[in-house]
């Protein structure tokens, strides 16, 4: 695993806002998110479902469709160009070529009526205008690379003939054909068994060292993050609430939400009777709570958190946290029932 970027960031997302204009109101799925990914770096984007991580990923590739749109004022600099200023044709040259995406459900991400060889070969045919034979050869090579046995035969098979783990390997193979600079992996292991999960993560790490690809790994599972990334970004309520190197996040989490996520994670060697859960549920993006968006589920909340929306404070070097506790740490000593639990008890 590599450390901080050396020659300037590969991807720089600045004030990204992606809103969905629905009949139920405006859903601010991504609300002013900024981060960087350096060359060869693996960054984890963590949060529960509904916090905006997948939308962030789709926004980077500009796969957001009506009623959603990326708001003006957002910027996404990649390899020196603002992705939002590219015409559709130029953007297509980026997709699958310089930035590739791995989706969550391998079962449904592959087209059931084409062979897997065909689908992998398609990438080189799109971007390199390769001939059928050359593209097929490449596809078989990729299958071998991702560890699929008997790749030449398997390439002729259809997705429904493969197991979940193998399908995910195929999806990874598809993403890496053009040796992209950045791979966005959206929950690549969530739909898989635990043992297969480990294999896939190992594969990703291995490929990353081999090709020097940057990876943006999106997940809700802190355990996955511990294994693979160098830096962690935690999202909640459409915003970044904490950002730090992985060892700092685990050693000294600052934001109560991060604490909650870690508390919910089972750990070997710990003697705890019960896994902690965060009370309440993620609010809908059409109605983020006022002030700090986490305040109604937070056990340290006080009046300021309900009123004032916290900016990103720098709590140590390279460690950011969107929490007023940075300025008033004394409240951490007075945990109490979060607002949602109190309301629930009352009704």
């Amino acid at each position: 695993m590599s450390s901080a970027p050396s020659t300037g960031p590969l991807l720089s997302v600045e004030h990204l806002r992606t809103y969905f204009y629905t009949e139920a109101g405006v859903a601010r799925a991504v609300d002013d998110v900024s981060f960087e990914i350096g060359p060869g770096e693996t960054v984890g984007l963590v949060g529960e479902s509904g916090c905006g991580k997948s939308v962030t990923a789709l926004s980077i590739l500009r796969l957001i469709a009506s009623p959603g749109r990326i708001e003006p004022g957002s910027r996404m600099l990649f390899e020196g160009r603002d992705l939002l200023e590219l015409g559709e044709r130029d953007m297509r040259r980026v997709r699958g070529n310089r930035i590739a995406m791995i989706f969550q459900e391998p079962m449904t991400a592959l087209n059931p009526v084409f062979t897997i060889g065909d689908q992998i070969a398609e990438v080189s045919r799109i971007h390199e205008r390769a001939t059928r034979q050359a593209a097929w050869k490449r596809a078989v090579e990729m299958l071998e690379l991702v560890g699929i046995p008997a790749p030449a035969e398997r390439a002729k098979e259809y997705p429904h003939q493969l197991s979940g783990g193998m399908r995910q390997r195929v999806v990874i193979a598809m993403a890496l054909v053009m040796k992209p600079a950045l791979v966005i992996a959206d929950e690549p292991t969530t739909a898989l068994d635990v043992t297969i999960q480990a294999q896939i993560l190992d594969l990703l790490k291995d490929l990353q060292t081999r090709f020097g690809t940057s990876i943006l790994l999106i997940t809700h599972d802190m355990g996955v993050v511990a294994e693979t990334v160098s830096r962690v970004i935690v999202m909640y309520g459409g915003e970044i609430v904490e950002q730090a190197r992985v060892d700092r996040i685990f050693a000294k989490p600052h934001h109560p939400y991060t604490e909650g996520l870690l508390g919910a994670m089972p750990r070997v060697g710990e003697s705890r009777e019960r896994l902690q859960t965060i009370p309440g549920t993620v609010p809908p993006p059409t109605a983020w709570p006022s002030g700090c968006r986490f305040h109604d589920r937070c056990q340290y909340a006080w009046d300021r958190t309900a009123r004032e929306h916290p900016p990103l404070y720098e709590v140590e070097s390279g460690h950011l946290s969107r929490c007023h506790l940075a300025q008033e740490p004394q409240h951490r000593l007075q945990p109490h029932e979060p607002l949602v639990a109190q309301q629930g008890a009352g009704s």
Partner: protein
Amino acid sequence: MFAEAPLPAPAPARRVDRTARVALLVLGVLYAVAFLAPVIAPYSPSQQIDIVAMKNRPPSLAHPFGTDRFSRDVLTRVLYGARLSLSIGTLAVLVAAIVGTAYGLVAASFGGVVDTVLMRLLDAMLAIPRVLLLIAILALWNPLPLWMFVVLLGLTGWFDVSRLVRAEALTVREREFVLAAQSLGAGRARIMIRHLLPNVLAPVIVTTTLGIGNVIVLEAALSFIGIGVREPAASWGTMFHEGTEVFAGTWWAALFPGVAIVVTVLCFNIVGDALRAALDPRQLPRAPRALVGTRTAAGTATVQ
């Protein structure tokens, strides 16, 4: 703005909802009209007003839909036609729904050999084109009383329903609450009625609603060639039972009953579609029957 890749989603629910409500309203009006025909019709449907002077008169104030070649008021006949056609349609699909549901439930609950035999028989019956079968029976057993006609219409149209019911029942049968009931000693009939039936009702309702339009058209078509409802009874079909050349001169006699049929069938289709969207998401004909064991209703307007 930026050129985003378009990823369309299905039509917004609200718009569809409004159309469906209007259609439902129109249907309500039609049924009311049908019910009240004897009260609101200006004349009697077989009343020949004046066979010399009033023959084939175009629409006028006294006769908004004109008169036909027997100098009968077309409006009256359309109103009475609603009465006849709507009741035939509704009753026929009810017959079809009952028979089809029973057949499908029995096939699904017994399973095994019984199921195979029943399904093969069904295949055979499905293969015979509905129209040909009806024409053959109606003409050969000429004349048949009206209630028999209705029953026949129903008996030739239950096949799709039974297929659907069987497929649905098969999935439900494997669910836990059925297994629980069985382990408590519930008999087959009890399971069929109390557990399977409520769960298969949704596709039945959808198919039935979409089927009424079919049957109304079928009745009209059969009456058109003279073997459905008989003259001088006024159904929307019998009103076409003149030679086509006649209509060249009296377009109103052909237009209004036809429009009535179109409006009615259209409303049933709209409501049926809305019901389908709400109750039964599997909308399309999918893999071949022999492999999956089910085929959703095609709901064609031309007859099957």
